[in-house]
């Protein structure tokens, strides 16, 4: 019965998503939405992919990574090289961006994921900086002046990638592997002693997260006309981190909502970058002081509906991490 209901919920949200997609596509093709709104929408979707991918690493597996912009940069540059230098189609370039970022995630993940907490945070931060410095010094990709990229990102591409990212990560979270990752988040030593191969699962989550960050990088690169190493500094990592933290560490719908909200806010504050950063940082401090678990905590949006039903009758399982 519950399985039936869950599948129902899944198809319901799929239908809603496709309706939303068609409506927006129609609005774009009829020219009702101007380019400002279209751009915001693209940016929102890219941010959602980034938020969800980091959510898998921090929220689900509990590995504190603050170098996510490094993977974004790897994906952006790899896909830009594919389209601009090797004249490959966009689809292949996106895939290449994702795969390159995943390989980078594997290479950096295997040694550093042995570290815990603060040390891991600093190591990933160092990785992000190293990527930026390498890109600054390689003339093939333009060094400090960056690379010009043609505009190839379209609404179907952005939407499809976002949907795939959400579905893959939600299903991963609900699988045996996802539960193993959650157990690592809750207590690594206990998980280890229950026979879970903690290194394997941490690296897996890290690689999946960096793959989607790489895909987002490909979309990002082909949405703006130029990419530069300075776009991928520590502040970018921090922007992604704040989505996950504000939404609630461990809540995917929270991360998505935070990504949408903050994209809107930062679009409106674009002309005042200092004010934007001041507001961001004050919000971050206040949230940590007064509501450290974030907007939704570890709950999902749907669990609020389920809660109401559970009161009416029947036992509810609050530890379910379903999307839909």
């Amino acid at each position: 019965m519950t399985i039936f209901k869950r599948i129902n919920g899944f198809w319901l949200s799929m239908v809603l998503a496709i309706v939303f997609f068609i409506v927006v596509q129609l609005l774009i093709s009829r020219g009702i939405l101007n380019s400002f709104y279209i751009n915001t929408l693209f940016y929102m979707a890219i941010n959602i992919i980034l938020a969800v991918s980091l959510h898998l690493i921090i929220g689900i597996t509990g590995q504190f990574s603050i170098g996510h912009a490094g993977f974004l940069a790897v994906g952006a540059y790899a896909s830009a090289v594919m389209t601009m230098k090797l004249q490959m189609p966009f689809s292949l370039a996106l895939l290449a961006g994702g795969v390159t970022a995943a390989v980078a995630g594997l290479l950096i993940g295997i040694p550093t994921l042995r570290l815990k907490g603060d040390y891991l945070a600093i190591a990933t931060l160092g990785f992000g900086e190293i990527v930026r410095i390498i890109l600054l010094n390689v003339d093939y990709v333009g060094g400090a002046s960056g690379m010009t990229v043609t505009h190839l990102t379209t609404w179907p591409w952005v939407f499809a990638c976002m949907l795939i990212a959400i579905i893959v990560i939600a299903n991963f979270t609900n699988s045996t592997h996802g539960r193993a990752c959650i157990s690592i988040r809750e207590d690594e030593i206990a998980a280890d002693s229950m026979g879970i191969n903690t290194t394997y699962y941490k690296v897996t989550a890290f690689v999946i997260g960096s793959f989607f960050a790489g895909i987002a990088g490909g979309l990002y690169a082909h949405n703006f006309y130029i990419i530069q190493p300075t776009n991928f500094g520590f502040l970018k990592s921090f922007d992604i981190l704040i989505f996950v933290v504000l939404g609630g560490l461990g809540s995917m719908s929270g991360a998505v909502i935070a990504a949408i909200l903050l994209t809107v806010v930062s679009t409106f504050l674009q002309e005042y970058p200092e004010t934007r950063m001041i507001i961001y940082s004050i919000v971050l401090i206040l949230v940590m002081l007064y509501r450290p678990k974030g907007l939704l905590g570890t709950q999902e949006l749907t669990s609020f509906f389920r809660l109401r039903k559970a009161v009416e009758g029947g036992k509810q399982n609050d530890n379910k991490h379903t999307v839909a």
Partner: protein
Amino acid sequence: MELIQQLVNGISLGSIYALIALGYTMVYGIVRLINFAHGDVFMVGAFVGFYAITGLHLGFFPALLLAMVVCALLGVFIERIAYKPLRNATRIAVLITAIGVSLLIEYGMIYARGAQPVAYPGTILPDKKIELFGVTISSQSILILCTSIVLMILLQLIVHKTKIGKAMRAVSYDAEAARLMGINVDNTISATFAIGSALAGAAGVIFGIYYIKIEPLMGIIPGLKAFVAAVLGGIGIIPGAMVGGLVLGVIESLVSGLGYSLWRDGVAFIVLILILIFRPSGLFGKNVKEKV
């Protein structure tokens, strides 16, 4: 000779890193927190020094002292407002708060005075070149080195000979037991922040005199590198931070001396990742077994 010249430069740079790293290491040793805002306290110190010299027409040492006092107060203020309420929160929550405080200081500074860089007045210290066995050493760098060494000796005296130093060591060893022995843990933590921030303020003024240019975002990279230095020496260990800072400074100068100056910033992080992989407890650290 070129090599020795680079070594001399490296030691000057390294002594600045060491001063900042001491603050990181002391705070980490006592509350297990990477104080991301530390690099920005360093920046504030540089600006206080600048305004003291240009606005109030103070000499080097009064300006240094003023910067140290202001930074000590700032450090205690940050600790009381942002970190103290989170004493029992998760590590991630505190780390994120620290990042938030860091950004708030940086962009608050930009908001207050704009992002444009300013230049330290070059005449504040006598600048004579001393030739020694074919190596040119400026009198400035000697004075800078002496100031850092005096501050480090002072720190060692405070930590090992005074009552507050004893309290610090006790709290970092076991905060609960220290509390039971009648030590005021909160005041001890505040004192640690004050001393660490004062050292960062001093480093800021020294940095300004040595590198001339200062700007509101100047704290990020030296802050991160000083953290690398603290990890290199073994975080939480005071002599480790000094040695780590000097080693890092020398490595960086050698890399720029070899003609890879653009890669200088990357080297620090490569050192960090290598040390974390092969010897996570640092050069001076002991390997601590995890207990359940």
